């Protein structure tokens, strides 16, 4: 799993400028509907990235990201109801979801492998049931309307774009930092990392907290742009979405989750026009294919192709 394209600063800047310009002028070429779609894909990319930090970098297969997505969404709801502004509310969503990440993470990071998957899955189900049961707080499955005035679709797009790029930048810095290296060591050889004296628990809890905060940010953005929250935000299938997008896009890369989320948003949308029910079957088949044939995802495939083409050690 251990491959890292060697980026130098110049290349990074070029990519950054191209991506920024591309995404910056995108709304000029898109219809209203596509702008909404791209906005959604970006938010879901941020959400998938939160899972990728936990799984792709720290090796914890969490099916519990919807917990933090939901917490972030409801934080926005109550923050708006309390009259706070958007920026403060989003920060609050990150903070509150991060606290939940810290609490949940501290309780479960000792658990390993498949059992970690189970515990987080059950945690997801539990939070969903709690949200269903406490209608006074969540509005149950009917949900609640987020009290906000929309500035407009394109304005929302730029807001989401800005937040996504900030998150990507944060994640890039994080994974290139000494902390990121320690995380990768834990993922690749947990025993060795422990023997070298690294506190596995501390690092894992830290990652889980950061991942929780980012998932909360995504949930907050989603609640804000859709103007609606419901108990369904906590549903485990949302956790599974983050997993699928990340695996298909490429786990252990910062851009992979965005690629996966964007691809599947387009696939879902195209299929729903043809035959709505078939989407889960296609996603499932793609996931099996990805696991058996290309475990490093679409981004991994691209990276390898580029690496082979350059004849270098990129792939």
């Amino acid at each position: 799993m251990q491959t890292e394209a060697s980026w130098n600063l110049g290349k990074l800047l070029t990519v950054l400028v191209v991506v920024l310009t591309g995404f910056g002028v995108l709304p000029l070429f898109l219809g209203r509907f596509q702008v909404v779609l791209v906005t959604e894909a970006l938010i879901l990319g941020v959400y998938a990235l939160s899972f990728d930090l936990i799984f792709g970098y720290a090796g914890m297969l969490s099916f519990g990201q919807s917990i933090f997505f939901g917490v972030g969404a409801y934080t926005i709801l109550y923050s708006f109801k309390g009259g706070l502004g958007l920026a403060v509310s989003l920060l609050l969503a990150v903070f509150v979801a991060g606290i939940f990440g810290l609490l949940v993470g501290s309780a479960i990071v000792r658990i390993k492998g498949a059992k970690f998957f189970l515990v987080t899955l059950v945690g997801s189900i539990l939070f969903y049931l709690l949200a269903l049961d406490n209608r006074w707080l969540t509005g149950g499955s009917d949900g609640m309307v987020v009290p906000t005035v929309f500035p407009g679709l394109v304005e929302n797009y730029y807001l989401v774009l800005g937040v996504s790029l900030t998150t990507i930048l944060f994640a890039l810095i994080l994974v290139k930092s000494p902390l990121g290296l320690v995380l990768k060591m834990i993922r690749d050889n947990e025993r060795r990392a422990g023997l070298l004296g690294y506190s596995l628990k501390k690092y894992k809890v830290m990652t889980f907290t950061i991942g929780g905060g980012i998932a909360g940010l995504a949930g907050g953005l989603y609640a804000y742009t859709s103007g609606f929250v419901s108990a369904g935000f906590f549903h485990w299938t949302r956790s599974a979405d983050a997993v699928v997008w990340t695996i298909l896009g490429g786990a252990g890369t910062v851009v992979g989750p965005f690629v996966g989320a964007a691809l599947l948003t387009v696939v879902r949308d195209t299929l729903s026009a043809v035959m709505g029910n078939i989407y889960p079957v296609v996603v499932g088949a793609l996931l099996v294919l990805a696991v058996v044939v290309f475990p490093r995802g679409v981004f991994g495939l691209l990276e390898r192709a580029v690496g082979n083409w350059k004849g270098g050690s990129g792939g």
Partner: protein
Amino acid sequence: MSKLAFGLLNGVAWGTVLALLSSGLNVVFGLMGTVNVAHGSLYMFGAYLAWICFSFLDSFWLSLIVSPLTVGLVGVSIGLLLKPVRKDSILTVLGTFGITLVLQGSALVLWGGTPRRVPLPFDSTFSLFGTGYSFYRIFVALVSGLVLYCLWFLVERTKFGLRLRASREDPELSSAIGIPVFNLFLLGFALGGALAGLSGALIAPLVSLTPGMGLRIFAIVFLIVIIGGLGKIWRSVVVAIYFSVFRGLASVFLDSTKGLILTFSLALLVILINPRILGRSSANANGS
């Protein structure tokens, strides 16, 4: 009082089916170290086969043979599909989760989202505190108990079981002394699938069938297997009955959502505070 008795009796009847289902997962996970997330969907598939047997062939009883056989074959196909990644617990979880999506999605496409019902194959009841209690539930408990006993005998008392356990303990040594490890792996999947299919068929007349019925029950069954201990069939039977009696009573005295919340919380608590469950994990279920 009658509520209590109903809760208890229902709990035991449900518990035996849950035990049967969890023993299927246990054969694959506990004895082979592979987590088959699709186990719940195989159960769902078995239940729908019962509905098909009833609606189109006019015989529910046929499904008690058709479901285990068909679903067992599906189990083998899953095993074959996952051959390249079977030693990596994380990848098998992801792969079988993909298969879950495919099975669940196909059920939705083929049979629709509206709940299907299979009528009770015999509707004789006996009186319990003045209310009728269906004999079918007793029948289900008896069949499940019988199959569980056969399974225990197969795993603990036959050469096949010995080889199965040996190939889990040490796959390399086992294949070195001539045990066909991969064939056993496939047989384990067949057995697990057959047990899931049978549980699904047995339960079909007691619940309404939806494509999504598999995944929540998978979470329950996986919890049971982990709390009961990997590879320990009887222990997971005890946990299954305990679990469903508790849930039955909680649902009777609270409502079904609150009952489920309480049950799941308690199960998580047991896992989190119990060092035996945390500490000992099978070789393959350990890390990525």
